[in-house]
């Protein structure tokens, strides 16, 4: 039983790491600010959720699980606001949009 | 190779990079970055060469480093205030005079 719980936790953490890796590859490979932000926020928030869930399962305590949920929600708020500010600034500064560039 | 050995070697290399930056860099803010890099290296070295107790690294060394981190920020803040004033007064971001640039 203990082994099964541990396996579930580890699988969740590793799945979270895969999402992080995908987000990082997106950050490095995507052509413009907007799509990079898209990769970062979407994939990394999912990754953080999975890592937190995995750690909560591994910790096996309600208090720690609650704290991890708080960590995730604060991370979510920070990511949403900072991504919004960066995108807004980029738009106002006239940052080029990759897909429109190629259409021309 | 143990964890401590890895960090001692990395810290000495980081310290060297900081010394190089402090001497070669032109911009005072980059010199400050180099100083901060050096202080991080010193902190890591201090903790790794201090002994360990059953409950982790030596708590005296940890408290010293914690004090050091806060002092480093205070010193950096003061140095940045000096830098901003220097730029306001002279328009220069390095300590050399305009025509002393070797240009």
């Amino acid at each position, binding site marked *: 039983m203990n082994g099964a719980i541990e396996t579930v936790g580890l699988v969740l953490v590793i799945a979270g790491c895969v999402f992080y890796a995908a987000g990082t590859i997106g950050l490095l490979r995507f052509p413009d600010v907007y799509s990079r932000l898209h990769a970062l926020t979407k994939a990394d928030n999912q990754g953080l959720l999975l890592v937190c869930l995995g750690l909560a399962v591994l910790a096996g305590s309600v208090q720690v699980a609650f704290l991890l949920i708080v960590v995730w929600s604060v991370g979510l708020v920070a990511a949403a606001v900072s991504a*919004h500010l960066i995108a807004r600034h980029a738009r106002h500064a006239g940052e080029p949009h990759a897909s429109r560039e190629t259409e021309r | 190779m143990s964890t401590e050995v890895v960090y001692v070697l990395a810290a000495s290399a980081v310290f060297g*990079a900081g010394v190089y930056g402090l001497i070669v860099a*032109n911009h005072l803010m980059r010199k400050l970055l180099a100083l901060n890099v050096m202080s991080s290296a010193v902190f*890591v070295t201090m903790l790794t060469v201090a002994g360990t107790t059953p409950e982790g690294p030596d*708590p005296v060394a940890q408290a010293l480093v914690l004090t050091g981190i*806060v002092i480093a920020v205070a010193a950096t803040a003061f140095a940045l205030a000096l830098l901003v004033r220097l730029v306001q007064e002279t328009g220069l971001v390095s300590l050399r005079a305009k025509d002393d640039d070797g240009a």
Partner: protein
Amino acid sequence: MTVGVVVDMMLGLALVALSLRVVTGGSLFRDIVLFILFGLLVALSWARLGAPDLALAEAAIGAGLTGALMLMAYRSIGADTEERPVRRRPGVALVVAVLTGSLVAVIGLAALGIERVPDAAGDAVLEALPGTGLGNAVTGVLLVFRGLDTMLEMAVLLVALLGAWTVLGDARPGRVHRVDRRTPLVGSLLTVVAPITLLVAVHLLLAGTDAPGGAFQACAVLTGCGVLMVLTGTLRPTAVAGFATRLLVVAGLAAFVLVGAGAGFVGHAPMTLTGTWAVYLIETAMMLSIALTMTLLFARARGLRGEGS
């Protein structure tokens, strides 16, 4: 060689590569950002070395706060002073590189050769710790065994602030590049984040007696909130330090001195702290003092006032 040591090696190599990039790079703005990243990796190495107190402090103060101060100063000295390419003759740089290279080798060898002392001060601390009522040895050293050091640290912070005030001269407080709070999300961010930071700071302060945490980590969280409030214009920098500001700035040092002197009156040796209530009192004062000092240093102001007043 275990997996852990492989992680350590990757972390160590990343630290060396980042530090080289920070000191030699071309764009100052990018290198400040890389320096923040460097600080976060240093925090990870503290965690690997088994020092969670330091990991918390490094991430919040060493990386976050220093980075915020640097970026703020970068904005106020202006992008037009962006570094010109180094005009120094490459030969000089090469000589310096060779010399620092040999310095690295000497330091590395010397540090590796240092022998661990068999019974260090740390063991004495762990032995005496149960008598203090504290469970966190680092907090014990900071406040009970070496309280004088921490008191003088508060004095250094005060001097740094006074120095910055002097350098500020008669200049109006630095223009803060504010984010417009009418920007969607930013206003609501504060209403969500401010109470959470307060909660986290108090939690860190209280937890610090028994678990990783304490006044320094708590003050860093509060400072983060202060920086956010300055950036969104909720707190505006002013050119005059009010009475409350002055009082709060010296509160940490004053609490130390008063409690220390008080111990002398009730029959203990002067400057000894007894009981957890003294620790809580001093830590609270320290937290408020440092947080205000750092926020003022960030805003390069003598005082702060709320938006409405």
